[in-house]
């Protein structure tokens, strides 16, 4: 644990001459902490010499509530974990229960899940880039560009599931409602138009001199530390580690699609930012293939009992590649209608493990950029 031992920083332009530290409590109402997140930062001049994250402002003991609810009763509640990506939360939970009870999923439902998960990835990554730019001082405009595209995808979710963000769409062994031909047409249109937005957005931000100056060589993460600290998702792949659960586990129908896994080289904020832009391109490729391959058919396994659903005794850990990283659910059944244990493996919470390591030696202004590039949602971090 070399990181917890605080070494005095080398004297630089920004350090104080008298060597006194200033303690700053950033958050929980700070506009760029993406929710109610607090960091206790010790500063030497403008340099961060110590950073302790403080969690729990949004804690509601989601796991205890899950133990007291029925299996299906937790499904709408998973929407509230990472409220940007309710579709992938639903999928991770449904996948774990399907593992626990040994349930097959019909073909069309798997395709619908892939389509909705990739749409979720598109809107999550787009809005993340917008937020990150907002943190860097590009107030509003890039975020509104991203939200304009996100809103189109949320409209799709709304017309399918009835809600923009709290979709509650997946069921054990399938999906809740079928997508009609009109919906498919609309979705195809939006996906076809998305690369145009990406071209514009990338041209606008990725080669911007200020963005490069603020992100390159900032918050560098080594591959060894990333693996050891359990970092997942785009943040891990920005360090050059090829680990994407869509390829590794091959859950759903992902082995049927051709796509590449973008990898970074430096593990800094710029690579993390770039990773999101590149992943969106791959998601568009997956979506186009899925629209071609999807066939009519049943969307839910008819053998599933909706009332008095009781999986056999046992335990299961299921995980998917969420937009923020590995989202897992660990469930233990004692044969009753409620899970004995309902555990969420939140990717953004575990990705915060290395926040201090990334921020040490950088200025306060960089902390916001580093935190933004990790991509956290407090609903999931605090649960």
């Amino acid at each position, binding site marked *: 644990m070399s990181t917890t031992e605080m070494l005095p920083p080398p004297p630089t332009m920004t350090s104080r001459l008298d060597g006194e530290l200033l303690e700053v409590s950033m958050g929980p109402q700070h506009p760029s902490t993406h929710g109610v997140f607090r960091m206790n930062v010790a500063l030497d001049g403008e340099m961060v010499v110590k950073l302790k994250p403080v969690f729990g402002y949004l804690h509601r003991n989601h796991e205890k509530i899950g133990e007291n609810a029925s299996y299906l009763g937790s499904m709408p509640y998973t929407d509230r974990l990472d409220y940007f990506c309710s579709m992938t939360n639903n999928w991770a939970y449904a996948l774990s229960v399907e593992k626990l009870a040994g349930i097959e999923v019909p073909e069309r439902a798997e395709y619908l899940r892939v389509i909705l998960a990739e749409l979720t990835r598109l809107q999550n990554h787009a809005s993340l880039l917008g937020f990150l730019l907002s943190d860097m001082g590009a107030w509003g405009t890039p975020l509104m560009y991203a939200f304009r595209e996100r809103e189109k995808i949320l409209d799709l979710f709304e017309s399918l599931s009835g809600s923009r963000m709290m979709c509650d769409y997946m069921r054990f062994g399938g999906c809740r409602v079928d997508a009609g031909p009109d919906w498919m047409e609309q979705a195809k249109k939006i996906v076809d138009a998305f690369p145009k937005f990406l071209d514009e957005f990338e041209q606008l931000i990725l080669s911007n001199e200020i963005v490069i100056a603020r992100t390159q060589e900032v918050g560098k993460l080594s591959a060894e530390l990333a693996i050891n600290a*359990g970092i997942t998702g785009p943040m891990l792949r920005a360090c050059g580690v090829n*680990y994407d659960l869509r390829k590794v586990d091959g859950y759903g129908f992902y082995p049927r699609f051709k796509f590449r896994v973008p990898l970074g080289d430096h593990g800094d904020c710029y690579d993390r930012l770039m990773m999101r832009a590149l992943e969106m391109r791959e998601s568009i490729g997956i979506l186009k293939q899925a629209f071609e391959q999807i066939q009519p058919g049943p969307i839910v396994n008819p053998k599933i009992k909706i009332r008095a659903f009781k999986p056999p005794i046992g335990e299961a*850990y299921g995980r998917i590649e969420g937009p923020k990283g590995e989202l*897992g659910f660990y469930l233990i059944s004692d044969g009753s209608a409620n899970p004995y244990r309902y555990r969420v493996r939140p990717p953004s919470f575990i990705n915060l493990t290395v926040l201090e390591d990334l921020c040490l030696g950088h200025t306060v202004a960089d902390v916001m950029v580093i935190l933004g590039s990790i991509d956290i949602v407090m609903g999931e971090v605090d649960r």
Partner: protein
Amino acid sequence: MESLEEIKARIEAAVPGAGIGIIANPGPAQQSSLLIDHEHASAVAKFLRDDPALRLDYCSNASGLDWLDRTVKKTVKMKKMVDGVEKEVDETTEEFFSGYLEAVYHLYSMAHKHGPVIIRMRTADRAEGARLPSLTPIYRSAELQEREIFDLYGVRFDGHPDLRRILMWDEFEDFPMRKDYREPDDYEYEPTPHDDVLEKAKTHYTPRPQLDGAENITAQS
């Protein structure tokens, strides 16, 4: 990947004296797990991480579990001699299992892309003996998750660099994820100076005759 029995045999060869048990999982997921003892936990985890064939370098999930004390009643029909006649009598035996807390780790390999190997550790009891060795020195990803287990289940991890409450506030006393947890009537109550201050303030509200002319007021009314 090798089977769990092979992994168990190889651990026992590499870490002498390690007590390893296999906990079967009866469900369809078939994710069985290894139960490891406290003394050799670090050595076993280190072996699993560094062994070239396994290379379980990634600890995905660390989760707490609570198992309460339970008694299992068994009724067995016994033949007994009652008054010289053989009769069938129901005999009830009670077996007591003491409760414990458990930590479960899901290990995967990013190098070889296989997994999971699930390891679990059990505490001696649910009170003072609720201690486990920390795996944070070996898997950094357990740092926040072990803090969470400590916070919600009350398992003390020896060797953890920074074991504090994480989701509940620091003054909170109970462990909310335990199965026998009961919510207090007013769990947001905190002793504040307000009660004393209010008592003191009462003296200011009683009328003082000399200054306020309280006598005149009562006489007039």
